[in-house]
C-alpha cells in the first residue's frame, strides 16, 4: 500500500460462536483464559461498530456483563478502563484482562455470585471479510476529499482490525500518510484515541486534521 494509492476497504462480519458460557466470575475467567483471541477481540470491539439507540454504559462486553448480570461495578469500571490503544497484540490484551479479573477475585471482600438464569455471558468471536471499495485516493488532498464518503465500517477496519488483528504498528491511514511524506500529520492521526470517540466522531476529527492539506 505504501507506494500505491490508498484503497479504502470495508468489511463484512460473520459472528462465530464458541458454545462457552459463563454464569459467574470464575467461569468468565476460565473462558477469558481459553477462548480464541478472536473472541477477546470481538468482545472488546463489537460495540464500536454496533448501532446504538442510546450510548452504552460500557463499550467493553466483559465490563457490561460484569456490571449488569453480576453487579460487580468496581470490576466493571476497571475492565472498561483498559486502554486498548496500548495493545498491538490480542495476547497481551487478554493477559491484562485476565490479570484484572484474577486480582479482583483475590480481594478479601469478594464473594462469588451467579447471574440470573438466561443472563449468562456467551463467548462469541468475529470472522471478518475485508473487501476493497471503489473509493481510492492517489494523494493526500484526494484522501481527505474522499474521507467523508467512507463508512464507519471502513474506519473500523483501518483502525481496529489493522492494529490488533493484522499486527500493523499503527492505523492504516497514518502509515500511508507517513509514506506520502507527511509524518507529522500521520502522527496527529495516530494520536487520536479511537476508543473514546464514536467512529463518526473519529472520521470528523481526521477530516478536521486534514483541512490544511486539501486542494
Amino acid at each position: 500500500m505504501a507506494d500505491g494509492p490508498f484503497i479504502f476497504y470495508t468489511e463484512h462480519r460473520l459472528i462465530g460462536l464458541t458454545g462457552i458460557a459463563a454464569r459467574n466470575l470464575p467461569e468468565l475467567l476460565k473462558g477469558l483464559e481459553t477462548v480464541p483471541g478472536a473472541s477477546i477481540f470481538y468482545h472488546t470491539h463489537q460495540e464500536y461498530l454496533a448501532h446504538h439507540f442510546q450510548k452504552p454504559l460500557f463499550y467493553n462486553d466483559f465490563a457490561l456483563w460484569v456490571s449488569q448480570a453480576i453487579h460487580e461495578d468496581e470490576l466493571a469500571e476497571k475492565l472498561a478502563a483498559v486502554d486498548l490503544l496500548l495493545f498491538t497484540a490480542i495476547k497481551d490484551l487478554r493477559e491484562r484482562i485476565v490479570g484484572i479479573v484474577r486480582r479482583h477475585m483475590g480481594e478479601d471482600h469478594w464473594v462469588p455470585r451467579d447471574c440470573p438464569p438466561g443472563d449468562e455471558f456467551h463467548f462469541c468471536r468475529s470472522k471478518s471479510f475485508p473487501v476493497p471499495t471503489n473509493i481510492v485516493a492517489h494523494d493526500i488532498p484526494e484522501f481527505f476529499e474522499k474521507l467523508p464518503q467512507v463508512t464507519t465500517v471502513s474506519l473500523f477496519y483501518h483502525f481496529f482490525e489493522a492494529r490488533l488483528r493484522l499486527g500493523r504498528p499503527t492505523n492504516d491511514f497514518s502509515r500511508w500518510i507517513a509514506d506520502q511524506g507527511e509524518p507529522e500529520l500521520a502522527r496527529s492521526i495516530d494520536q487520536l484515541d479511537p476508543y473514546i470517540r464514536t467512529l463518526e466522531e473519529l472520521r470528523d476529527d481526521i477530516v478536521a486534521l486534514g483541512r490544511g492539506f486539501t486542494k
Partner: protein
Amino acid sequence: MPTTLQHYEPIVGRETIDELRVLASRVRRRRIRNINSTPVGGGVAEILTRLVPLLRELGLDVAWDVIKGDQAFFNVTKAFHNALQGSPEEITGSMLETYRETTAMNLREISLDADAIVVHDPQPAGLIEGRTTTQARWVWRCHIDVSRPQPRAWEFLEPYVSRYDAAVFSMPDFAQRLPEPQYLAPPSIDPLSEKNRELTAAEVARVLEKYGINSARPVLTQVSRFDRLKDPLGVIAAYRLVKRRADCQLVLAGGGASDDPEGGEVLEEVRAQAAGDPDIHVLPLPPSSDFEINALVRGSTIVFQKSIREGFGLTVSEALWKRKPVIGGAVGGIKIQIINGVTGFLVHSIEGAAHRALELLSDHELRTTMGENGYRHVKQNFLVTRHVMDYLLLMLALDHPDEDVVTLA
C-alpha cells in the same frame, strides 16, 4: 410476479443490494443443497422459501430437498425435538433404530452431489453418514435451542452433528460445544411477504371491522399459537389489570399447529376466560391468514408476546417492523428483538406486562418513538437481506475455516 432483489432496494438501500451482489460474485455457481424435513409449514420451510430464490438470483446453484419418513419416524423426531430442548421425553432403543433406518433410506434417495450441503435441524442430521460419498462441505443449520438438552437425546445426536464442517445457530444462547466452527445467523422476516408488506389504511380498517374490533379505541394484540408457553391466559389477566385504569380491547389471534394435541384444550381455556367480555376477541385463524394477521397487527396500539419459553419468537420482529411497541417475556430470542425501554419492554410477570401497557397507552410519544426504534432495529438486524448476506459469508467461511480475517482482494 416473483419478488427479486431489486424489490428490496427501496427498503434496505441500493448499497446493501450492491454489497450482496459483490459478495455473491465470489461464490457464484457454487452448488448448495439444503435438506430439511418439510416442504411447507414451520419456520424452516418459510425461511427457505424466501432465501432459495434470492440466492439463485445472485448466481448460486441452490437446491432444496426434503427427507422422507413415515409417521413412526416423525414421531421419533418430534420426541427428539422436545428432548433436545430439554423436555422430558422417553427415548427408547427402538426409536433410535427407526431414526437410523430412515436416515439410511434417505441416503439412498437423496443426491449428495454439491459443493455445500446445509442440513436443517436434527431430523435429517444423520445424513452426515454419507459424507464419504461426496466432496461437499457439510453445515448443520440448527434452528432450535440445544443448549440444555436431555442427555440421552444429545448423546445420540452429538456423534452426528460433531462430524459437520460447520454449525449455525440462531442465538449464542442456543449453541452447544462442538468441535467444528460455529456461526450465528438469527432468523429473519421478509418485508415484502403478505404477512409484512405495507397495507393501506382501508385494508386494515376492513379487517378490524370484519372481526368487530373498534379502530377508534386502543387495541392490545398477541399473535401466537394457542399454546401454554405463549401464556395467552396471562395476557388476558394483564389486559384485565389494564382495563381497570384504561379503555382497551384485546385480540388473541393465531392458529393451532395440527401436530399439537394441546392446542384445542388451550383454546377452550382461553375462550372460557374471555367469555362475557365483548372487548376480548379470540381469533383462531387458519394457516393462510397472513393478510389478516398483518392487518390486525397494523391496527393494534401495542403488541404482546408474553411467552414463558420461546425459540426465537419472530412475531416480535414482525410487530416491530410495523412500528408497534412490543411487550414481551424476557425469554429466548425475544431478548434480542426487544431492546428494553427502546423498542418495547421486557417483562417477567403479568403485573409487569400490565404496568408497561398502561405506561404505553398513556404516552403517545413514547409509542411513536419505540415504534420507530423497533422498525430501525429490525431493518438493521432481522430482514431477509441480512440473512442472504450470512449465507454468502458462510460459504466463504467454509473455504477459510481457520482464518479470523479473510481478505477478499
